């Protein structure tokens, strides 16, 4: 999948972008609970469909974009579903129920992702008293993911403009090299972040929760 710049701007440019973050978190959270908690997988399917309707009809995210983004988690779950389906007598039923729950949960999470910039969610968490450590860890993880993501996108673009990995006999070697190079660049980026923290006076120590602290 090729992430267009427009796709990355989606959380900032949809009809829900001005809606209060708390409302969006509450809606997505309720749909997530509905997908995971009730015994019947049909509730999960209904939750997924409702999330899709809210995203496409109310927030005006295009159906094509919604389906494109939903494909990866569903395919990932489908691969696991094959293993579940072939392991035991009630395997197929369990696999279908799992897929339904993944559909519902992924749709609920995606509804929040496409309508809300992640930093708004972080800011919401930071405003809640007693969640400081959790929000710091969340933000740090988010920055790490963004840094690796940016490296990854830049390198994928570089693969394209160098025209590498397009024939079947070169692709395995090129993509293996790509994975190795991405790992090394991520490590280098982590070292740079560590140095950046050091020069700003942080001593490599993350604030640790003590017994009794509220996360």
């Amino acid at each position, binding site marked *: 999948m090729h992430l267009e710049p427009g796709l990355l701007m989606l959380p*900032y440019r949809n009809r829900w972008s001005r809606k209060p973050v708390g409302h969006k978190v509450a809606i997505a959270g309720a749909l997530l609970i509905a997908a995971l908690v009730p015994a019947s997988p049909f509730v999960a399917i209904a939750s997924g469909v409702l999330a899709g309707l809210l995203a496409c009809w109310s927030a005006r995210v295009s159906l094509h974009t919604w389906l494109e983004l939903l494909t990866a988690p569903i395919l990932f779950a489908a691969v696991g579903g094959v293993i579940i389906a072939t392991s035991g007598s009630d395997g197929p039923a369990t696999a279908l129920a799992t897929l339904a729950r993944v559909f519902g949960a992924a749709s609920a999470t995606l509804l929040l992702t496409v309508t809300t910039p992640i930093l708004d969610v972080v800011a919401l968490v930071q405003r809640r008293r007693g969640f400081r450590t959790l929000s710091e860890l969340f933000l740090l993880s988010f920055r790490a993911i963004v840094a690796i993501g940016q490296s990854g996108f830049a390198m994928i673009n570089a693969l394209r403009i*160098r025209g*590498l990995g397009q024939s079947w006999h070169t692709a395995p070697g090129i993509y293996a*090299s790509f994975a190795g*190079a991405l790992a090394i660049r991520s490590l280098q980026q982590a070292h740079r972040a560590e140095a950046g923290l050091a020069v700003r006076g942080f001593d490599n120590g993350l604030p640790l929760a003590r017994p009794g602290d509220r996360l």
Partner: protein
Amino acid sequence: MISAVDLSYSYAPGMPALSRISFTFRAGERVLLLGANGAGKSTLLSLCNGLLRPCGGELRLLGEPVEYSKAGLRRLRSHVSTVLQDAGDQLFGATVLQDVAMGPLETGMQEAAARELAMETLDLLGGGHLAERPIHALSAGEKKRVALAGVLTVRPSILLLDEPSAGLDAPGEDALLDTLSACAERGMAICVATHNTWLLRHWATRAVVLRGGRLVFDGASEDLLPHWDRQTAGCGLRAPAEAEGVTLCR
């Protein structure tokens, strides 16, 4: 060779990054693409190598509109090569030689011939001694040299470079410019996107100046220099003479 007709691009609705840009890069030209941060230089390079698809207008390669199919983009990129600002992003091999040989191998060349060509190109750029070095052990300047070697092995007819002299010391910059001049003499069109107006006096034959996504000057370098203040007002660029002073101090 490559031309743009009313090329426009915006990253988000209502926020144009480039508006109706038209130009033609011809064989052997040494073009300097000038503009402040956010003027649209990198966007223009990304349109020229097919990473972005224009929202309006047309990009033409050898007189024909560029097709954005897999085959069309492959054709475009067989003519247009790019060296990115952070050259480390485009290096994938475990060693320098392995990386530089990737391009020729992709075109179906035998491994021995590809390695020989890679070695020749590295020698040409004064990087022969780096051949067996792992990529992650290279300095920023060395990475830039290796990235350039990697794209030169596929014999592009148009070479785009984003801030190629950033991070290079004076001898490194001189060597890079000599190589680019040699490539231009062999008929390659070269476009360098930079803030470094010093290159206008010492290297470029043509200048393209962008301001806020619009083309404000396109012509010979010697036509721009006498009217610098008028032509580049508000572009956020240092005057070439002033830039020369900064370069000498450096």
